[in-house]
């Protein structure tokens, strides 16, 4: 459905997206993972036909976004990073007017709006103006709005960033339902848990490049070990102790606040550390995640910078 080849966006001297390749198939939930400034949103906007590419090929449903913008956007539902609901209108009016932008008739929109209000759990808020909604409600409205034209591809740019945990879980539940229904989703995120929950396949982006591609599980298998031991000795002692325990796992990573030991068997490795006479202030054994993949690939954590 989407195909990018050598896709590049330059702003003057700065290259935001540097020759990336990817394909998205129908019914797939595709993730773009990376820290802030990696080029995720720029890529999203190029797919959404609201930003022209500098070079490379990009087709969406067989169309070229630089020539057929409105025709491509007709097929898309867009959830931008920052909500841009219309503050002069109520919840219901927002959905109605947005549908009118797509040229949809009232007879189609009336039942559709009811469906979407139920989907977004905003039935009680239909006549409320936007300013009176909570952050989670605004986000759900933006997603409902993106579905008004029954789109073939739903584009979600950082869908849950800035929401409290409860609101995030409600939203994930809604998005997961869409995925189960077979929707094609394109999701950007810098939250690992979000990518693991929502994405069938993803690319990891860093500084405008794709640094890895695969399913969440295959990426973890390829770039991380099965388990991770996190130990903290206090920030001044971490660097000092790290070389003395690094050989216990397959690989070690030293962060300012903690040491990560990548290993197949976490508990045993932790015992090995203790057996060498080191007693960490805190320790944690956990399964590897995409966070570790990112750290391995870029040497930085996602929350950095």
């Amino acid at each position, binding site marked *: 459905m989407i195909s990018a080849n050598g896709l590049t966006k330059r702003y003057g001297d700065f290259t935001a997206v540097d020759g990336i390749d990817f394909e998205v198939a129908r019914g797939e939930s595709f993730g773009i993972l990376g820290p802030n400034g990696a080029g995720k949103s720029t890529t999203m906007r190029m797919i959404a036909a609201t930003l022209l590419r500098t070079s490379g090929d990009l087709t969406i449903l067989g169309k070229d976004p630089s020539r057929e913008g409105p025709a491509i*956007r007709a097929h898309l539902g867009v959830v931008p990073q920052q909500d841009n609901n219309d503050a002069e*209108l109520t919840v219901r009016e927002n959905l109605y007017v947005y549908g009118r932008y797509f040229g949809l008739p009232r007879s189609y929109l009336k039942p559709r709006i009811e469906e979407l209000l139920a989907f977004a759990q905003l039935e009680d808020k239909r006549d409320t103006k936007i300013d009176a909604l909570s952050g989670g409600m605004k986000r759900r409205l933006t997603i409902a709005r993106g579905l008004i034209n029954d789109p073939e591809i739903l584009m979600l740019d950082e869908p849950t960033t800035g929401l409290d945990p409860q609101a995030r879980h409600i939203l994930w539940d809604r998005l997961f339902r869409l995925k189960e229904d077979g929707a094609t989703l394109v999701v950007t995120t810098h939250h690992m848990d979000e990518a693991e929950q929502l994405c069938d396949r993803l690319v990891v982006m860093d500084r405008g490049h794709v640094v890895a591609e695969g399913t969440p599980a295959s990426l973890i298998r390829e770039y991380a070990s099965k388990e991770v031991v996190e130990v903290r000795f206090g920030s001044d002692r971490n660097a000092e102790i790290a070389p003395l325990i690094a050989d216990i796992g397959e690989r070690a990573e030293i962060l300012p606040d903690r040491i990560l030991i990548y290993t197949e068997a976490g508990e045993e490795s932790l015992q090995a550390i203790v057996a060498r006479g080191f007693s960490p202030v805190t320790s944690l054994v956990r399964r590897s995640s995409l966070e570790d993949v990112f750290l391995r690939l870029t040497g930085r954590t996602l929350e950095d910078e």
Partner: protein
Amino acid sequence: MITQLIATSAAVEIAERRGTYPGAGVYAGRPHAVMQRAFIALKTSNMLAFLTGFVEPVLFLLAFGYGLGGLVGGIDAQGQDLSYAAFIAPALLASSAMNGAIFDSTYNVYFKMHYGRIYQGMLSTSLGPLDVALGEIGWAMLRGATYAVGFMSVTAVFGLVPTWWALLTIPAAVLIAFAFSAIGMAFTSYMTSFQQLNWLNFWLLPMFLFSGTFFPISSYPGWLQPVIEVTPLAQAVEMVRSIWFGQFDLGLAVNILYFVAISVVGASLTTRRLTALFLR
């Protein structure tokens, strides 16, 4: 079912209907959807601001036409001896069309562009930049024209409408309002801070006072008259006043061409600017 599984939905087909026409990259044939948004927003949020617009020209008519007019007495214009109120009434109609159009196409547009992110939302749909430009300009035009019609009813009550020809000033007001909102939106789209919008007042107030509104342009020294005459409100006042008194001549055709030209320039600059801001 909330999403489409297999193929293009009926809704998507409607949304991309214009896809194959020439110009489909900038225009989807739906400026009316943008105007409908403005109408719903008016009902939900903006009614008070809208209603106050009717009052302003009436106040000027009372204060100047009847207050000051009592001191001025009659005035010799359009080849007739007119009361001062009758002289300024068509000019106030022209300027109320201008003011209504300018307000919506400048301050409101600036807000929607930079704070409300309304155009960003519109241009993520299958609307094109020309739809947004024409829709917003069209709405501002309606507002200006509505004020003109409202003001005309007031002047009729005061017995200031001389002939039935005056009804034709309504289409003239529509044209004036369209031109002013086109150029106003084009201007606004190039502004990068709210302070810059103050330039508007720098132009609007002098135009309102000196465009043949309150005294004939013939009172200026000879060299200044052509300079005044090419300014937009002077053109508008001249056009409305000659139609108002049923005087049709070649000058009217020039006025019409003048506003058509401004409209085309304003709408195309706006479209270009919206593309540069939101689709590049």
